[in-house]
Every structure is written in structure tokens, then in C-alpha cells.
């Protein structure tokens, strides 16, 4: 135990002297955060609209079908009960409720005029106003097409207080996740393949040092580095971008460390498999790049093509980012994100099996 601790201290001291390692574990992550944080990509994109079609008659179906054809809208049918909480979490921009008496035909005199209700997320005013004008435009057009007259419909608008989710609020957990992945996979794979090829590991194995003690020191060196990285990133996010992790910093850090352990197992498996340093970047990119884009780092994981979404939703980084984002943005507790944590644990198990299979001291 003491031996492992002292070994960790020695290796960590050496790690801090390695300029390339410091560049990739601290400077690059900060650059990512600063660049993407100032881009504010959240201002672009679609208006997400949930539709609760309570009428479900010919007229309402025609109305919904027309809305679905509009590219700017990302529509989805959902009950009001389901959609309202999502609206509050800013997973939706708008909710449109079509009343049971919905009709486009002119009403008889004295009859009640059907009332459409639009719930708009006040945290997304631009999206709501765009969506609202689209809905009104569609109603007007349908009305003229059917009746050659102006619509006889009320549109009532209600504001819903959504979480004021800026792009940078969305971005920070994703950046934390992706950097945890990069640091763990690359730092272990590069350093240990070099040590293996140069014969350093063989020399260490000629001492009575237990392989497990050595591995523990290597893991802890990286976990200390990951802790440092995560705290610096959160610090910059709080001070520079006014991001406030709602669920607290400690749960974020703990989830990041669990993610680190997961990706370290993959780094060790890769270090065991690769013969030379040149093989590392190719395989490491093959592992990390799809997750970079499909696991919801810079934009929603829903942006992945629907066909592969069942797979991308199960990627290790997706679980990590989901957990971090729910904690940071929605103030979720560790218990709330247990589903994602379970996903991380399962992946850690898989990684551990791979690491044990490939990282064999008796072959160095």
C-alpha cells in the first residue's frame, strides 16, 4: 500500500514534467472549452415541438401532418403530462395542445370557438417565437385552403419557466466527459506502449515489485491528473462562462473518476495489444472519434442518425455525458442518474476483461 502510494507520487512527479502530456491533458481541454464555449452553437438549429393531439380527427391529423413537413420544426407526439416536465427541463421548446373540438370548418354562430394552446419555454424565446409564427401561418393556410376564409380559432399562449439552458451550460458536461475519455485512453496507451517497447516494464518485472502494485500506481497517477483536469475545467466554466453546475461539483467529479476508470481499462487493453507507439493513435482514434461525435459532446446525442442511435445510445461516453449533463444542468443526484452509472459500470467490466486479456506482464 505504502509502496503503491510512493510509486504514485514518483510517477505523478514525472508526469508533471512531461510537457506533451501536460499540453494534452490541460491545454487542449481548455482550448476546446474556450473555443466551443464562445461559439454559442445553441442559437442555431431547430425548434423542438411536442404535439398533444387530443382531437385526433381528420382536421387535426391534417394539421399535424402539415406541421411535420416543416423542416424548422422537430415534432413529436406526446401527452401534455409527459411534455410539460420536459419543457421545464428545456428538452423541448414548445408544446402544442389540440383541443377535442378542433375543426377547421367554420363554426355555427354561437358555438364555442376551439382554442389551441401553445406552451412556450421562456428560456428559449427565439425558438418559441419562430415556432409560434409557424403554427399560426399553418393554421391560416389550412383555413384558406378549406374555407377560403380566415381561421376561426383561438390561439392561446402560455409561458413555461424552463431551465435557462445556454449552449455553454450544455457544453461543459460534454467537454468534461470527452476530456476524461481522451486523457485516460491516450495517456495510458502512449506511455505504457513506449515503456513496453523500450523494455522498461521488463526491467521493472525483474524486481520483486508486484504487477498489481505497479498498475495501481499507474491508475492513481491518471486519476489524480483527471481530478486536476476536471477541477480546472469546472473552475474556468464557473469563472469565465458563469456556468453553475446545479447538482454540485463533487458528484460531477465522482462521475468523472468512474468514467476515468472505465476508459483507463480501455487504455490498458490498447497498451497491451499495441506493439509500437505508431499503432496507438490509429486504434485510439477509432475508439474515441465516434464517441466524440455521437455521444453528445458538442451537440445533442439525438443528432446521430436515427439508424445508429440504438448503438450510439449505448456508447460508454454517452452514459458518461448523460450522467454529467443531468447532474450539471438539471441538478440530478447520483441516485437519479443510476441508469447511466450502471451503464458505466457494465462498460468498466467489459474494459477490465479486455485489459486482463491483453495487458499481460509475462509477455513483456
Amino acid at each position: 500500500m505504502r509502496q503503491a502510494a510512493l510509486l504514485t507520487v514518483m510517477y505523478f512527479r514525472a508526469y508533471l514534467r512531461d510537457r506533451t502530456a501536460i499540453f494534452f491533458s490541460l491545454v487542449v481541454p481548455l482550448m476546446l472549452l474556450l473555443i466551443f464555449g464562445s461559439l454559442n452553437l445553441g442559437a442555431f438549429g431547430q425548434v423542438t415541438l411536442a404535439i398533444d393531439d387530443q382531437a385526433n380527427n381528420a382536421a387535426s391529423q391534417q394539421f399535424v401532418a402539415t406541421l411535420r413537413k416543416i423542416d424548422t420544426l422537430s415534432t413529436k407526439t406526446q401527452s401534455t403530462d409527459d411534455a410539460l416536465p420536459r419543457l421545464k427541463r428545456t428538452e423541448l421548446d414548445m408544446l402544442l395542445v389540440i383541443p377535442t373540438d378542433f375543426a377547421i370548418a367554420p363554426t355555427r354562430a354561437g358555438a364555442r370557438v376551439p382554442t389551441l394552446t401553445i406552451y412556450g419555454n421562456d428560456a428559449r424565446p427565439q425558438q418559441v417565437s419562430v415556432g409560434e409564427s409557424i403554427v399560426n401561418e399553418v393554421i391560416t393556410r389550412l383555413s384558406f385552403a378549406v374555407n377560403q376564409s380566415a381561421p376561426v380559432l383561438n390561439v392561446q399562449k402560455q409561458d413555461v419557466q424552463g431551465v435557462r439552458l445556454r449552449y455553454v451550460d450544455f457544453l461543459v458536461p460534454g467537454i468534461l466527459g470527452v476530456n476524461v475519455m481522451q486523457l485516460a485512453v491516450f495517456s495510458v496507451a502512449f506511455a505504457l506502449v513506449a515503456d513496453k517497447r523500450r523494455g522498461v516494464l521488463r526491467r521493472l518485472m525483474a524486481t520483486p515489485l508486484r504487477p498489481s502494485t505497479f498498475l495501481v500506481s499507474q491508475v492513481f497517477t491518471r486519476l489524480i491528473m483527471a481530478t486536476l483536469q476536471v477541477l480546472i475545467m469546472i473552475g474556468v466554466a464557473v469563472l469565465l462562462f458563469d456556468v453553475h453546475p446545479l447538482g454540485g461539483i463533487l458528484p460531477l467529479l465522482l462521475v468523472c473518476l468512474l468514467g476515468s476508470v472505465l476508459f483507463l481499462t480501455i487504455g490498458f487493453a490498447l497498451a497491451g495489444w499495441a506493439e509500437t507507439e505508431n499503432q496507438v493513435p490509429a486504434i485510439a482514434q477509432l475508439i474515441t472519434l465516434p464517441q466524440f461525435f455521437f455521444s453528445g459532446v458538442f451537440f445533442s446525442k439525438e443528432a446521430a442518425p436515427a439508424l445508429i442511435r440504438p448503438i450510439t445510445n449505448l456508447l460508454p461516453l454517452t452514459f458518461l455525458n448523460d450522467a454529467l449533463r443531468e447532474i450539471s444542468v438539471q441538478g440530478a443526484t447520483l441516485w437519479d442518474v443510476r441508469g447511466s452509472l450502471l451503464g458505466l459500470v457494465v462498460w468498466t467490466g467489459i474494459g477490465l476483461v479486455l485489459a486482463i486479456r491483453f495487458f499481460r506482464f509475462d509477455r513483456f
Partner: protein
Amino acid sequence: MSAIVTVRDLRKRYGDIEALRGISFDVQQGEIFGLLGPNGAGKTTTVEILEGLRKADAGDAIVDGIDVQKEPARAKARVGVQLQQSAFPENFSAKETVELFALCYGVTVDPLALLKQVDLVDKAGQRQEKLSGGQRQRLSIATALVNKPRVLFLDEPTTGLDPQARRNLWELVRGIRQSGTTVFLTTHYMDEAEVLCDRVAVMDHGKIIAMDPPRTLVAALLGRGFTKPVIQQQANLEDVFLDLTGHELRED
């Protein structure tokens, strides 16, 4: 004198290649023992089995009374090791490298005293990767001495060194033997074996084909009527080189 290393009928096969075809020998306490042979003869395999880094297919390897195959960790604690490639973790200074190995053996040492012993005390603070080839070999010997080994294994210690550095290393090896450590080295330089080793074993194709003090082997060869054209020469090119460039150690 008693045997400190005992090897009996050691066999090792890599796929189709029989690297060791049943070798046996003893190394006496306090001697410098040389294992000679061309590349691929099985020298490194033999040393690595004795160091506990490889498992033999059959046979016994006993070091300081410990069966290396059965108790590799205990055996490793008793020996010092210099592998063919001396490589150490990067971003460690020479002093920290010695400390790292002391930690691996679970012993406390005075790193500066050890570095002084191998004439590297003025490089203590320098990163090990910046050291020259000869300096790194000496650092490697310092790391092999942290546990006060009973036997020191040196696998081709002077390969790639210039004549000054080789001579310097020979002196170092003699000094280590003087302090009571048995030295087991492999080499394919015959002059090195001749000046350094008390006894040598010659290996080829996985078998030991001769074993004796170098002079006995030479005498036996002459006894068989061997002659070679004798050129009366009181010096050779290496003497010229050393005369011109001096014995002083070069640092890079």
C-alpha cells in the same frame, strides 16, 4: 567455494526453435562467470530464466539456494539485473531512477552513494534519458545494486560502448566482484571475456560446448596443435586508439 547459481538440464522451446537443449553448469560464489556465444545461441534465454523473467520448459535453476521457477519473487530480491536494453521510465532523474528501483525492492538506499560508486554523482539531477550510452549502462548497474544482490546478472553490458566506456565498465565490474558480489555476464566480445572472466561457458545452438577458465581453453586449443600465423606485434589498433584519445571517460 560453493556454487551460488546451479543450472541442471535446462530446456526451453519457442515454437519450432529449441533455444535451450538441456544445459547444466554451476557458478561459484565470488567469481566473474561469462556466458559466451554467437547471437541466438541461447545466452539471453538462460539469463532471463535465472532472473525469473522466463519460465523454463524443464530443468532446474537455483540461485542462492532458491528455486527461481518456484519462488521467482524471492529469487528476484536476491539478484541484481541489467537487461540488454537499459531503459528506464522517462522524466525521472538519475537519482530518482535509483530511488524508484529501491522502492521496487522495498529497500532504503543512499542514492548518491550508489551513484558515486558508478561515477555518476555529478549527473544525479539529470534526466536519465539525457545520459550517454555509457552513463546509462552505469546507471543501470547502480539500479541493479540497490538491493545488495548476491549475484549480478549483466546481459551484454558493453555492447555499443566506446573503448573508454568499456574499460571503465570492466573496472566497475571488478570492483563489484571485489565487494563480494558474484557476477554473471553474457558477451560476444572475446577480449572482454578474456580479461574479465574467471571462467567462461561457450554456448552454441542451445548447448554448452565448452566450460573452463579462458586460459585453460586457450591452452587446450594449443595442445590440440592449433597454430595461427603469428605477427609479432606489441600493440594493436585499440592500443593506438587509446593512446591517441586517452583512457579518460567520454561523456557523450
